[in-house]
């Protein structure tokens, strides 16, 4: 009874897309027949990226689902980059750095570990499974580990299904009478007096 009274006239012009799970076939409209996990991998150039290179040169095959982005250090991976990747359509994010004690910049990987530890809790509260974010230490010689982690991560994301982060609708366009750059009292805009920066 209660549910019915709630649904009567409540129409939302900005409806949220239904959440999807792997059980629903994991298909997104307009995305072809089968969904494939999209993984963004942030690899530090000194260890994990070199290991990925090695894996390639050794002709190891592994799941082709990750797009690798090279960083100077795992400590440079800002949590904003992770959220941006999810917002732009990544289903999982993999971060690779040097083993503890081996970071080229001494402590970048420890910083990454701290940030990712807290970020995972934040993700869970925001409704993103923490398993979609993985941090791994892979040294330059561990090409086989790149292979293993990539395969594992792809399998995990396949099991979790697509993520799909919805974006807010764009603002309504300005009426044509107000698109000019004119100033309130006419004239040209004078030099900035108020300190500030773009949003």
């Amino acid at each position, binding site marked *: 009874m209660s549910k019915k009274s709630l649904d009567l006239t409540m129409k939302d012009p900005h409806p949220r897309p239904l959440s999807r799970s792997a059980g629903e076939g994991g298909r997104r409209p307009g995305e072809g027949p089968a969904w494939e996990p999209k993984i963004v991998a942030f690899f530090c150039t000194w260890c994990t990226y070199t290991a990925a290179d090695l894996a390639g040169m050794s002709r190891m095959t592994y799941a082709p689902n990750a797009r690798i982005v090279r960083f100077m250090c795992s400590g440079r991976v800002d949590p904003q980059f992770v959220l941006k990747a999810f917002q732009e359509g990544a289903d999982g994010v993999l971060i690779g750095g040097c083993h503890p004690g081996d970071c080229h910049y001494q402590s970048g990987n420890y910083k990454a570990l701290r940030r990712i530890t807290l970020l995972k809790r934040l993700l869970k509260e925001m409704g993103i499974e923490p398993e979609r974010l993985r941090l791994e230490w892979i040294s330059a010689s561990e090409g086989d580990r790149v292979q293993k982690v990539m395969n594992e991560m792809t399998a995990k994301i396949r099991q979790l299904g697509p993520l799909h982060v919805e974006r807010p609708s764009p603002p309504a*366009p300005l009426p044509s009478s107000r698109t000019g750059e004119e100033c309130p009292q006419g004239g040209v805009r004078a030099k900035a007096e108020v300190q500030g920066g773009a949003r």
Partner: protein
Amino acid sequence: MSKPKVGFYWCASCGGCEEAVVDLAEDLLKVVEAVDIVFWPVALDFKRSDVEAMKDGEMAASFVNGAIRTSEQEEMAELLRKKSQLLIAFGSCSHLGGIPGLANLWDRQAIFECVYKEAPSVVNPEGVVPQEQTKLGSNGYALTLPSFRDTVRTLDQTVEVDYYLPGCPPPVKLIVNAVMAILENKLPPKGTVLAPDKALCDECSRKATKPDKLALRELKRPHQILMDPKKCLLAQGLLCLGPATRSGCDAPCISANMPCTGCLGPTSRVKDYGAKAMSAIASLVDSNDEKEMAVLMEQIVDPVGTFYRYSLPASLLHRRVRNLTPSPFKGEGWGEGKKGLGERSGGAQR
């Protein structure tokens, strides 16, 4: 030349921003002398129809506070946009979503279930919830209410915004500067946040006591310690978000021995305030051991509420993607047998 016309309006807000206008004190007289206030529902008896009767762009500026939650607020934002040369997002809620934006952890259905049915103080055996339209008997009259959206939005996610006055509420100094800049036609480029683009620590009176290198083992909340009124709060283990927050407020919270909660939002280099603030605090935790650091970080009880207190709708994720965790309100006496707040099953209902 007649005086420029300005308007004030409020959307999903607490009313504190309207207070801030009154807080201008004597400066308000200067403002009133220089401009004609033609719309200000909280203080003056002008109606929506008065605004509708204006020519497009007739008002020099409109200051809109509050986040956008209902269809009526959307309409008002669009109307004021049309009638004003400048639209200024006034205060944290309209700038970044503010406290009302934390409701983006839930959706309309969960909120209605909680507020009108499940809350322990509610008696509502018939399960009555607000309807957008109610027909009255046989005379054909219908009463209407605005529609309540699933998601809270910022003003600039609704209409184009020219400038932002940050803060919860915006500091008087910034309001006066902004009004003067408009009157003297000395505005910075469109889209600017009208506040200094530096971190709060920069203007904090305790800056000198902030160590260059901080390593925290204890992250405390204000009620848990006796504070040193002179020492940097972060150095005392309090979650002061000053390092990640824009300055311009003169740090009144710090002066009152309260850590900064980040109401002025980020500087221009930062896209997602909460992620940046979280990153800044996490890197200070004094541990290199995965298990131990997780335990230390448990001291941050509510990461989303702490780091996104004023900016969830403006964040990259902007709302909870789906519900993974059971409602914190579920428990004894909380609507036994019923679904708790946020415990929607699957994706069947919007």
